[in-house]
């Protein structure tokens, strides 16, 4: 069994294909709800990739947070607010054509950069989790090595949450 066609490889390509398909669908759908669903597909695909790479905790967290919460939030926002359910088809203009060319060039550039980079080769025989389960390893890392940044991020998020509530709240003077 050549390493190129191991089961992992096949799974990787299948998942990538799924993600790409969902991404393309997201862009090409005209109905907003469909778009939201396609985004959900992308999230789930990413989660599958994480799990494939052995990061099951991150993968599942991805499902919980993105596919579960965020997509539902988007759906809620779509269903509860008033807007056009479908986007009108836009005509193909010179500007859009130029943008497409730009995107293509960007893609090519990125490809070259990635190919040209000498990535550090991990040693598959070394267990990055040091014998612990994936979840345990993440916990150890978060609460031992990166304690301060972790708490800072929590603080930042709390501040953001409070800020969002205050912004969304009606000012008393308005009534």
């Amino acid at each position: 069994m050549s390493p190129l066609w191991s089961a992992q490889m096949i799974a990787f390509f299948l998942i990538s294909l799924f993600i790409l398909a969902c991404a393309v669908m997201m862009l090409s759908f005209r109905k907003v709800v469909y778009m939201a669903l396609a985004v959900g597909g992308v999230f789930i695909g990413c989660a599958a990739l994480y799990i494939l790479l052995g990061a099951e905790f991150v993968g599942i967290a991805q499902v919980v947070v993105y596919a579960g919460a965020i997509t539902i939030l988007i759906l809620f926002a779509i269903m509860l607010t008033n807007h056009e359910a479908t986007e009108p088809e836009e005509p193909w203009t010179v500007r859009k054509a130029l943008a497409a060319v730009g995107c293509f060039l960007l893609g090519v550039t990125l490809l070259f950069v990635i190919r040209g980079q000498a990535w550090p080769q991990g040693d598959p025989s070394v267990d990055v989790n040091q014998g612990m389960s994936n979840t345990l390893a993440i916990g150890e890392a978060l609460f031992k090595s990166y304690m301060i940044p972790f708490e800072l991020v929590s603080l930042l998020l709390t501040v953001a949450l409070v800020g969002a509530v205050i912004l969304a709240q009606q000012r008393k003077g308005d009534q």
Partner: protein
Amino acid sequence: MDERDVVRTEEMLLNVGPQHPSTHGVFRLIVKISGETILDAEPVIGYLHRGTEKLAENLQYTQIIPYTDRLDYLAAMLNNYALCHTVEQALGVEIPERAEYLRVIVMELQRIASHLLFIGAYLMDLGAMGPFLYAFQERERIVQMFNEICGARLTYNYMRIGGVRWDAPPGWLDQVREFIPYMRERLKMYDDLITGNEIFLNRVRGVGKYDTETALAYGLSGINLRCTGLEWDLRRKKPYSIYDRFDFEIPVGKNGDCFDRYYLHLLEMRESLKIVEQAIEQIPSGPVLGKVPKLIRVPAGEYYSGIEGARGEIGFYIVSDGKDKPYRLKIRKPSFVNLQLLPELLRGESMSNLLAILGAVDIVLGEVDA
């Protein structure tokens, strides 16, 4: 308020019924809601209209009795009595003692049966499944007793002008006697099962409140009026039949909310049992049908008398021109009157209270539409 600052919501028209699991028959309610708040509600009635009042103009008085069965089909005995009572008042006939007692017994049993159904159906509206079927078990016993005494389970046609159609069959009174302690025990069970339940309390306490003035202004009667604290029961205020011989209480509410309306049903059943118990003890023997002419001709004039029905004052207004058929018959239908308050009650309420309020108003569509 600035339009841009708030989430813009549309007013939505929601059709509740006529075929909806909880409208207690074919009743349609058009609810205008904004978000969760009810802006307006409009009851649409008439799906069960049969023109009873008009039909009655072509019927002899005895023939009208079966039609009254079909008004409030959950309390047919009371309707029977209301009509017979009015005609008897007009004729001034003497009713045999035994007939009076039998009437009181069946009427109070009927009240219990009707209240039981209210409690079951109300809890069903609120999502509890058990009480509905428990209530039907007791109701079934009452209905079976009625079946034995008059041969029908729902449309009794039992009362006649001047008395009742049949005497109680042998052993029937004993059955009723046995039923009383059983029912008392079951009432205690309902108290345990429902009254203490926190979820139930949270749904009905303080919901659909109104005060005595509003109730009187809308002409409410029965439990819908007594829940506001006014002690108004025709059995006491304008004693008819032989109700003045019995010792019973008129339970009244304090807050006029859905909980009071529910609880009064429970308490009234207790009082009704008391009346039945006393009636069974006192019942004399004798004939059950008084001396009335074969063809009843009500002397010309206008007559009205109302009795305390299961849902409020049910009254028959008869205009007679001296013939054997009424010139005009008008029925005061308690459900119909009580329904008037519904839009007023619902306005401004949350959508989630709709069912709690609608259920507690306790309407029977057969009566509303007549």
